Every structure is written in structure tokens, then in C-alpha cells.
């Protein structure tokens, strides 16, 4: 009778458990995946640190050979949107516990960088973030005081935290087949509706903000304010990409301050 092969996933070795081991701890570490962000491995250090609690279940436990080899692999170069990185962490650690071919795991990590980055950037940074900020600014302009901040934080983080939890769980559930999770109906639908919502709310917020800033001013002053906003936007468009919008607007403010000092 031969002894069972100690490699995980090999015949006789225990298969990966149905639930991700230490899910809460991994999730908590995912929130700090960019703590050691650097130009060498980008998010790699955070990726390894987040997935480490799962790797403790490899044969030999923490400090064992398979654990150390897997941890080194998971600490290599990685970059993605931080909220969706859990998808790759779940999938890669699942593959490690399943004893998949190391080359396949490395290919998986490399292949996920681009899609997770572009989907997350489009969904969160370019859509959901401006939408929630616009809601906060609208409510502030309409006089809802601190509720504006509460609404901004609750709206945004409901999607943010939900996405982190879903991504980690889906990555673990799918393992090497995690690519299909990127086509999940919820993610697709969210991508379709987030941009129009953001465009509409930001569009509605701008005139309301201008009105709130110039509340009580005579109509002529409001018209001058509208013209000034249009002129600043036009000037930024003219000077972009040589100067950022905030640089141009700050220069305008600085010029106004000089005019205010030299005022006869």
C-alpha cells in the first residue's frame, strides 16, 4: 500500500473546503490591499497579505513548504481595481488549496489584472463615485446639512462593501473559472445603469450648487456667475491637457485675489 500524495489536490489529499477558511479575516485584509502599494509589484504585497489566512490550510500548515511557496507566488506583481481584487484573491487561493498547476495560477493572476481594473474603474471611479458625490452635493445645496454626508457615505459604501464581499465569495466559488463571474448579470446591469445615473445626478447638481452659492445675490450677479462658470470651463478645455482643471481654476482664483488687492 502506498502513502497518499501530500500535495494538495493530488489523489488522497483533502479537497478545498466548500466555504473559504477565515473569510472574515481575508475580507478585512482586502480593505487594506493597497497599504504597501509600490511601483515594483503594485498591489502584490497586499494580495499576498490578504490571501495568507487561507494558505494556512495547505499541507504542513503555516510555515510549511507548500504554504511558503504559495505565499511567495501570491505576493508577486498584481494590479486591479481594489474593490474587485477579492475576486482574484478568492480564485487564486482556491486554486492553491485545490493543488492546481502553479503556472495556471500565475496565468490566472496575470489574466485578471486588466479586466478587473477596467470593469472596476468604469463602474466605481467613473460612475458610482461621481453619482454619490453629486447626491451629497445636491442634498447639501438643498439644505439637508449633515444628512448630505450621511447619504453620500451610506449610498457609496453599500455598493462598495457589497462588491468586496461578493467578489471574494465569487472568486472562491469559481476558482480557476472565475472569468465567468465577470459576466455576472448583476455586474453587467450595474455597469449599464451606473453611468446614466451619474451623468443625470451630476448634471442636476451643478446648477443647484451654483444657485446655492449665489443665494440672495441679485439676478444680474447670478447671470455673471453662470457666465463665469462657463468661461472657466471653456478656459480649462482650451488649456487641457497641458494644465489640469483645478490648476486653471486655482489660477483664476489667484488672479482674482491679486485684483482684489489692487482694487482702487
Amino acid at each position, binding site marked *: 500500500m502506498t502513502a497518499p500524495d501530500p500535495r494538495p489536490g493530488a489523489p488522497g489529499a483533502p479537497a478545498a473546503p466548500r466555504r473559504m477558511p477565515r473569510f472574515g479575516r481575508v475580507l478585512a485584509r482586502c*480593505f*487594506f490591499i493597497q*497599504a*504597501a*502599494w*509600490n*511601483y*515594483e509589484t*503594485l498591489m502584490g*504585497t497586499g494580495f499576498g*497579505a490578504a490571501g*495568507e489566512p487561507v494558505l494556512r490550510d495547505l499541507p504542513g500548515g503555516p510555515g510549511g513548504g507548500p*504554504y*511558503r*511557496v*504559495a*505565499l511567495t507566488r501570491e*505576493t508577486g506583481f498584481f494590479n486591479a481595481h481594489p*474593490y474587485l481584487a477579492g475576486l482574484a484573491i478568492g480564485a487564486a487561493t482556491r486554486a492553491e488549496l485545490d493543488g492546481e498547476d502553479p503556472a495556471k495560477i500565475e496565468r490566472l493572476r496575470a489574466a485578471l489584472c486588466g479586466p478587473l*481594473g477596467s470593469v472596476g*474603474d468604469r463602474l466605481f*471611479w467613473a460612475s458610482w463615485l*461621481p453619482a454619490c*458625490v453629486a447626491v451629497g*452635493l445636491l442634498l*447639501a445645496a438643498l439644505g439637508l446639512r*449633515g444628512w448630505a*454626508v450621511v447619504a453620500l457615505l451610506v449610498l*457609496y459604501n453599500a455598493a*462598495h462593501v457589497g462588491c468586496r464581499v461578493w467578489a471574494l465569495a465569487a472568486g472562491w466559488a469559481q476558482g480557476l473559472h472565475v472569468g465567468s463571474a465577470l459576466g455576472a448579470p448583476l455586474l453587467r446591469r450595474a455597469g449599464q445603469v451606473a*453611468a*446614466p445615473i451619474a*451623468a*443625470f*445626478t*451630476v*448634471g*442636476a*447638481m*451643478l*446648477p443647484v*450648487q*451654483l444657485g446655492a*452659492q*449665489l443665494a440672495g*445675490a441679485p439676478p444680474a450677479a447670478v447671470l455673471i*456667475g453662470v457666465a*463665469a462658470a*462657463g468661461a*472657466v*470651463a471653456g478656459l480649462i478645455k482650451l488649456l487641457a491637457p497641458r494644465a489640469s482643471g483645478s*490648476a486653471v481654476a486655482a489660477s483664476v*482664483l489667484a488672479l*482674482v*485675489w491679486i*485684483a*482684489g*488687492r*489692487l*482694487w482702487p
Partner: protein
Amino acid sequence: MTGLETLGVVAVGTVCGVDLVSGPQALLSRPLVAAFLGGLVVGAPLPGLAVGALLELFALETLPVGAARYPDWGPPGAAAGALVGASRASASPAGWLAVLLVAIVVAWFGGWLMHQVRRANGADLHARHAAVAAGDPAALRALQRNGLLRDAARAFILATFALTAGDYVSVWFTRGWQAPQALARLAIAGATVGVGLWSASRLFGRGRTAWWFAGGLALGTLVAVIR
């Protein structure tokens, strides 16, 4: 501002700065939130919220994408919120103009400092290369902890600098201002809404979203006129 309040504002600014990249990225770093919290610390959350809204229009331009260098609005936002809440000098539109300019400069400086933090994280990784290559979890923990501490130090410097410089500059600006305050108010409105308009048109001014943006503008104009 009392010593305790100053400490509180710097602490809030530090937390908001760390939130931008290191974690948990829960939007505490947005100027609307940071300035509100800064104002809350000095007992004046509403002026904080108002100056945060102005800075937020500038920050709409910032997309915190990957390796790009972008301004950090959290620590200067917290300082600006506290300054307009607590200081008599920054209570006038000319004083607000000064606080805004300081916050913008500090936010850019924050982006440059973040670049330095990332380089230091890389140097730390090089120094621990052997341990990381051997799969030592203690080395990973040290890298994560040191990265967080570096980022916290960066945010602490920014918040302290914004608070100190903002206080002096707003007094200086207000004393030298001779034009009607309405000019400062108009300039702030034009500059903030102008940069917001440009950022929004860059994000949503093409394709299907352009129609949604135009619809929002129309509704917002109606609401502003009715109010």
C-alpha cells in the same frame, strides 16, 4: 481653535488621508466628508460642509485610478472645514478664497508626497526581498504595517501644514482685500462650478450619457430657478 481641537482636526485629516489609497477607501477622503468632519471637531459643521462642497467640485476632476498621481483632498479638506468654522478671518468670501487656494496647493503637494511614499514602499520591499521570496509572512506583515504608517505620516504632515498655512494665509488675504466681497463670492462660484462643469462634460459629454447629462442640467436649472 483650542489645542485639543487642533489635535482633533489633524487626527481627522490623517484618517481621511489614509482612506484615499491605503484603506478602507470608504470615501472619508472626499472633501465634502473631510471638511464636514473638520468643522464638526471645532463645533461648526455647517461652514465645514459648505467649504467641503466647494472643494468637492474641484475634486470631481480626480479619478483615483491605479498608478496615476492625483491630489489628496482629505487632509486639506479637514483643515479647510475647521478653519472656516473656527477662524474669524476666514469668515468672509475673501477668507474662503484664501482657504480654498491653500487647500488646492496642499492637495497637489499630497499627490507628490504619495509618490514618495510609494517609492519608499518599493525600497522597503527591496530590503526585505529575501524574506518575501522565502514566503515569510512576518515580512509581509511588516511591509503592510510600514506602508500604512508612511501613509499616515504623509496625511499627518498634510493636515498640519494645511491648518497652519491656511490660518496665516487667510488672515493675510483678508487684510489685503480691498474689492467688494461680492467679487470673491462670484469668483469662487465661477471657478468651482466651472471646474465641475468641465469634469462632468469630460466624463459624460459623449455618447448616450451626454443626453442624461443634458437632462440633469435642465432639471437642475429648473430647481435652481424655482428655489
